[in-house]
């Protein structure tokens, strides 16, 4: 019995413990890397699509952790950034196809937000490919499995997400454009 408990604890720790990182926040032991992907799926389309993938016994990687939301338009960028901060390697947002939203226009909002957030992440120095928006309807179980497979492969090739925390030794490169930005006096 002790052996099983120890094993279970070990598995738990493996999931919870942060991976070994170098000073740039890169994973040193790449072989052990299993992407942690967070999925925000809308209740009416994508979640039902994922359900269909399940009951159809379709195979897709177990790297995705799904959070069901009532509408993809209800996902605040705050939640997405918080997830990245807490160490998500990739985020998949699933919503209804344009025009099919249960709340008529919720997914327009998602589309605008994600498009904007991609640009912002890029400017902050994060790869926008870690954030992915897909329209998956309730009938597209096959497509859901396909998207998760494809996205997991992509994140696996991108490697672990860089840290959101400042790391000692990581210096702000002095830029000429910012020099002399002292007090502006009369």
């Amino acid at each position, binding site marked *: 019995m002790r052996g099983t408990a120890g094993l279970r604890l070990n598995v738990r720790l493996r999931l919870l413990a942060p991976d070994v990182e170098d000073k740039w926040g890169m994973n040193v032991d790449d072989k052990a890397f299993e992407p942690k992907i967070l999925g925000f799926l809308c209740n009416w389309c994508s979640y039902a699509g994922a359900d269909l993938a399940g009951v159809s016994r379709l195979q897709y990687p177990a790297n995705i952790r799904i959070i069901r939301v009532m509408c993809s338009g209800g996902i605040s960028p705050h939640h997405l950034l918080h997830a990245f901060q807490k160490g998500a390697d990739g985020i998949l947002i699933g919503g209804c196809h344009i025009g099919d939203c249960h709340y008529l*226009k919720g997914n327009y909002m998602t589309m*605008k937000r994600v498009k904007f957030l991609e640009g912002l992440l890029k400017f902050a120095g994060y790869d926008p490919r870690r954030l992915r928006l897909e329209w998956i309807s309730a009938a597209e179980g096959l497509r859901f499995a396909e998207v998760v497979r494809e996205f997991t492969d992509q994140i696996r090739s991108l490697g672990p997400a860089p840290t959101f925390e400042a790391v000692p030794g990581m210096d702000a490169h002095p830029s000429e454009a910012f020099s002399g930005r002292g007090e502006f006096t009369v």
Partner: protein
Amino acid sequence: MDTKIKSLLLEGRVDGFWGYRTMNGFPFPRLFTKENANELEPWRPTVARYPVLKLLLREMRMHSDRTYGVLVRGCEERGLRELFKWNQLEPDKVIVVGQACSRELADWCECRKPFPDLLDYGEPAAPVTRSRKVEALQAMAMRERRGWWLTHMNRCIHCHGCRDVCPVCFCTECSLEHRELVSGTKLPPDSSFHLVRAVHMGGRCIDCGLCEEICPARIPLRSLYKEVNRLVEEIFDYRPGVDEGMSPFTFPGDELLLPTR
């Protein structure tokens, strides 16, 4: 400043006027009324900038029946328009007197419109269309840029100064104070703190730069929000502070403002 504003006050067209008064050699924002109208000074160009709109908004929330006048720069005029659009102020309760910024200030701000449309005082300076700072950041490699931002954000002392001084941060409840999402005890706060604020500035930031000026940690926030503005213009073809149109992030979304993939 004295004659025009004095006549506004004495004729009773405005109940109060937010102008500036020199104290100890520095201009300070001050609310002039009929009673202290003789304290008004002649206009002179300054580089001193204050969150006048924040003061105006606070005053108007307390006395919604009064009419106020305000001396604005180009950025403050853009801010006023945004506040009108977001239904925070009533356009017919605000009377605007405009002043132009000096060329030095416009260059330092990299301001695209350093003068208001209604110009009463000063000569309009030439607009600066390119931002050297944003271009320098865009030229960096992605990893280098991440290090650059993280090092700056690491100095944050979580004072909320950038939010408190911002003329378009008018929400009475702020998601940056949500304790489930932003820890109240961690210092420096999560770097997502600044990115969330940047998201909220989308379609709203009027590029006044008060956030960067007030920041005790000297985080170059203005460059972040300048890029936010550039993105909003590139994706949605919307520039905050213009007369017509609404922010693309208003709900429900307008189909016309959908990004073209």
